[in-house]
């Protein structure tokens, strides 16, 4: 059974020019112990989606439609108080700006212990501090540095401390929003390894968000490609990479330089993403798509299932398959 089921989620922000639809009609499901990665360019709605799942949208943000079923419960039906029981205990998030998420005036071990105790006060201090040591070992943080203050840590160490905090309550789901973007490759690699190991060891589900497709591919079983607030392709990592279907996915893949194979000319995607306050009808990629035809604008889009584990949201893909 799926741990998380998201149905037709539409999220937006009230802005001066009107209602900005940051995420529209997004559906997916995530099983226990699996990881799902969302990729797409800046502003496509990745962080918005993650924040909405945690019900941590800023005051001008609103979930307009849809359902979020987590662990058998409808999160959108919950009161704020009930949501507090779920947040951090059962689902935790590592934020895009995580480096600054530690409190500068408290020692790292005190902060992690407090996270444990807030949600499980009956544990007692001693047990909590023992658990902190266990967690630090898990995320590769030296026990001798636990009594340091955050400013004494390097970026990679801070990120490890934050992962330890996220794990403090043994959540079933972790949402990681660009957790390694500011880090050097060697540290990034070590942290991605930790994340993968922790996932296996505790059978945690992970939603991994990044604009860097190579990082997402490294940790995710399944991949969702987002464009202008919509999911446009979704499937098993291998299938999405080896036979990308959506013109945006193809374009995205050919705009990254690679280290292996022939050195190919990079093909940037021409133009810009559409205005999300007045999004165009039909396919949102229309203006930038090399294979677009007039019918893409006028016909309603439907998901096309290519295999049971790979689907695409493109009118022309459907036509070519004769459906």
């Amino acid at each position, binding site marked *: 059974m799926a741990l998380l089921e998201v149905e037709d989620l539409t999220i937006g922000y009230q802005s001066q020019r009107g209602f900005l639809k940051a995420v529209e009609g997004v559906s997916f499901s995530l099983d226990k112990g699996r990881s799902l990665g969302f990729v797409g360019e800046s502003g496509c709605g990745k962080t918005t989606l993650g924040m909405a799942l945690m019900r941590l949208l800023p005051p001008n943000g609103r979930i307009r439609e849809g359902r979020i079923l987590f662990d058998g419960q409808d999160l959108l039906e919950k009161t704020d108080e009930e949501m507090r029981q779920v947040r951090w205990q059962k689902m935790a998030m590592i934020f895009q700006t995580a480096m600054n998420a530690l409190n500068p005036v408290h020692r790292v071990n005190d902060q992690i212990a407090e996270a444990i105790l807030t949600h499980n006060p009956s544990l007692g201090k001693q047990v909590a501090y023992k658990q902190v040591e266990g967690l630090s070992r898990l995320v590769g943080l030296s026990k001798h540095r636990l009594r340091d203050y955050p400013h004494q840590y390097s970026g990679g160490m801070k990120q490890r401390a934050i992962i330890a905090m996220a794990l403090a309550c043994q959540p079933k789901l972790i949402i990681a929003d660009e957790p390694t973007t500011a880090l050097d490759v060697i540290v990034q690699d070590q942290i991605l390894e930790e994340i993968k190991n922790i996932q296996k060891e505790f059978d945690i589900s992970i939603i991994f968000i990044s604009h860097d497709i190579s990082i997402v591919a490294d940790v995710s079983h399944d991949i969702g490609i987002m464009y202008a607030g919509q999911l446009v392709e979704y499937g098993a990592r291998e299938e999405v990479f080896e036979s990308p279907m959506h013109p945006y996915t193809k374009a995205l893949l050919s705009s990254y*330089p690679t280290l292996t*194979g022939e050195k190919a000319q990079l093909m940037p995607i021409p133009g810009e993403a559409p205005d999300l306050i007045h999004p165009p009808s039909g396919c949102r990629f229309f203006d930038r798509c090399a294979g677009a035809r007039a019918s893409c604008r006028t016909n309603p889009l439907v998901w096309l299932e290519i295999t049971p584990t790979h689907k695409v949201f493109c009118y022309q893909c459907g036509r070519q398959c004769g459906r």
Partner: protein
Amino acid sequence: MGNGKQTILELDRIVKRYRTKGFFFGAHGQDVIALNEVFIKILRGEIFGLVGESGSGKTTAGRLIVRLEQPDQGKIYLDGRDITGLKGKASKDYSRRVQMIFQDPYQSLNPLLSVFDTISEPLIIHKIGNAEAREDSVWQAMKSVGLSPPHDFAHRYPHQLSGGQRQRVAIAHAMVLKPEFVVADEPTSMLDASMSAQIFNILLEMRRRLKVTFLFITHSLAAARYLCDRIAVMYKGNLMEIGPAEEVLRNPKHPYTQALMDALPKFVHSGGVKRYETLLQAEREVSGYVGCPFFVRCKVARAPKCSREKPPLKKLDDSHSVACFYAEPGIKTRSGGKA
């Protein structure tokens, strides 16, 4: 370095130290050696890549080249002429010929200047052309970086531009003087893949059309491979490996370069099944040693030699040099992994 190409810019055993305030290190502070005897010759018309992790000294090298700072030791030559003591007209002339594009398009542009004024500013400072000729140059520069139609952008201010557009303005600003040498310091690290690809292609096009020489600073090995003819790998201010980009990245010889290759995200870059495994899991505990800068993390290291002596940069062949005692030409580096 073959091909009969001429050196345009030379860094000759450059040392740059910074004195940090005593914060954790005791009252006197401690020197950070940002560049340690760095020796690089850049050839006219090439794109030379400087790669390395955060703090390896890449930006410092760029800042020394555009004379925002002075080296503590060593000399920098442009066309064989020492630039250290340049004054007056010679100094101004240098600052026209050598330009820098900065990492952060959000900070490098003056928010109070329109796009047009930003790009024409260098022409005014260097008193080049009359108003009409300047306008022409600005339009041309804008077109060459894809800010077109130019009049759509000319009167906008930085806050009315996307990150990619801002970086293009910064490039146009650097290019309008038709410099011969441009330092591009991580010009795309704040941008999306597609926008980065656009900027990369703009730089390649400038090199092709205007024969500009670039020092391209990046921490992305894949970007370096795409753009650069040759690269130098830096670690804590030291030059570890230098050679043709394709050669260094396909056949890295320095244990540190090999560790960088091992750390690339696996799934996408898995074409290189080769694993070098040169990085120690836990750093060595050493204090005050004078040996190889990578010794603390190097699995290949052998005890007294690597901890006591700094390995000199030695040639493996005509174009490929490595600063490691145990990197041998021809000898296959460890290639564990699957058979």
